[in-house]
């Protein structure tokens, strides 16, 4: 159990857990996005996909449980590490300068907490259906209509797009950085890992945001 203690309590171990949980969550985000893009194939295909997920039964609950545990661990460690980091420099510099750190890397906790708020809203909106009466009034199996109804409000769509911008910024640093935390630094690998963050960030932003935009512009009805 010493290994467990080392992973959770030490600086290097906690960063490794952040990297592993971050990688898993990124995997989820990419799968989720790919699923969402089925919307463009029409209501029948999308509703069949949504029904397919619902009929996984016990496996679905296992996946949900694993995802929740991963998410909670990632958020818990992020908050714990940030508190330690803030405590390590109690007096700030009078002249604050940044030599090369990216803006994305400096606002990880902010974009991360925005994601936490977003995930709670998102679940309340589409999973528990307690945010808008129009969605709770829809037929239970019609996921397609749910998305279209939800995103026909410009305010809701705007919030989703904003949240995706935050997620994108988070992934821009996170995806590139997790390799370093896991010790994967290599002359031949670095050009790829450096670009992977920005690439994944762009794919995720445009992939997700295209849907509320398409609904607002009437391309998806």
């Amino acid at each position, binding site marked *: 159990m*010493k290994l467990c203690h080392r992973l959770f309590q030490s600086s290097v171990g906690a960063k490794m857990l952040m990297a592993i949980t971050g990688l898993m969550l990124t995997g989820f985000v990419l799968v989720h996005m790919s699923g969402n893009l089925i919307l463009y194939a029409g209501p029948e295909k999308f509703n069949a996909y949504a029904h397919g997920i619902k009929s996984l039964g016990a496996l679905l609950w296992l996946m949900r449980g694993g995802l929740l545990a991963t998410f909670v661990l990632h958020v818990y460690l992020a908050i714990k590490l940030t508190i330690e*980091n803030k405590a390590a420099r109690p007096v700030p510099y009078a002249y604050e300068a940044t030599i090369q750190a990216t803006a994305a890397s400096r606002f990880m906790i902010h974009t991360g907490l925005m994601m936490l708020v977003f995930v709670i809203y998102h679940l309340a909106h589409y999973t528990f259906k307690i945010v808008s009466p129009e969605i709770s009034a829809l037929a239970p199996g019609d996921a397609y209509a749910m998305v279209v109804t939800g995103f026909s409000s410009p305010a809701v769509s705007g919030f989703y797009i904003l949240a995706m911008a935050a997620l994108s910024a988070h992934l821009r640093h996170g995806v590139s950085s997790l390799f370093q*935390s896991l010790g994967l630094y290599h002359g031949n690998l670095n050009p790829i890992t450096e670009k992977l963050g920005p690439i994944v960030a762009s794919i995720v932003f445009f992939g997700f945001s295209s849907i509320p935009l398409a609904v607002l512009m009437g391309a998806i009805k």
Partner: protein
Amino acid sequence: MDITLHVWRQKNAKSQGKMEVIEGKNISEDSSFLEMLDTVNETLQESGVEPIAFDHDCREGICGMCSLVINGEPHGPEYGTTTCQLHMRSFKNGQHIFIEPWRAKAFPILRDLIVDRGAFDRIQQAGGFVSVNVGSPQDANCIPVPKQDADKAFDAAVCIGCGACVAACKNASPMLFVAAKVSQLSLLPQGKPEREKRVLAMVDQMKAEGFGNCTNQYECEAACPKEISVEHIARMNREYFRAAALEESPKEGHGGE
């Protein structure tokens, strides 16, 4: 050239410090940053003001004693340069220059710009050494070291322990320092017997001193006067995980290697 300094003044470890404005007149462009401070201090002394206290020793960029965060950057704006090797020609006439001590909970301020870097000594003492039997010295070439390993170890061994990595890090983390020491010794055959114990102990001590955690922003690498690469941090991460895993399943017959 004339400059305006904004300097952190603090009487001792217990007192409250604050930024003070001090004018620097007739400074030679060819003087080093520390020589500029010497000149300013002479003027201060003549007018009965306590001179600015700052750390310095060799003044040739190899001892790791000089520090100073200059306009927000440890060791000032020049890349791969210690403060003592920084010259006033890097600044403009009439410029405002902010001079602050290394800022970290683990580096308490002793006076003005001098901080106590004893935390680094304690991290080093936790595992940054090799144990050898005393006696007559061995022949220099009796332990073969592959050229590539020797080169990599040397890249890490150039660390002078100045603490600029901590000062530059947004989280006041000393990962680059600790990684340089772990990396240097774990690459060499002399460091192998204590390889696992070393990395675990040094990372533990780093935490015990109250330093922050690495967030891979590489401010340390940019500020390091010895241009040490964050590659060493990745190696330390690997070393740490390897050691933690081996600790879990100890080999049969302790000390058998």
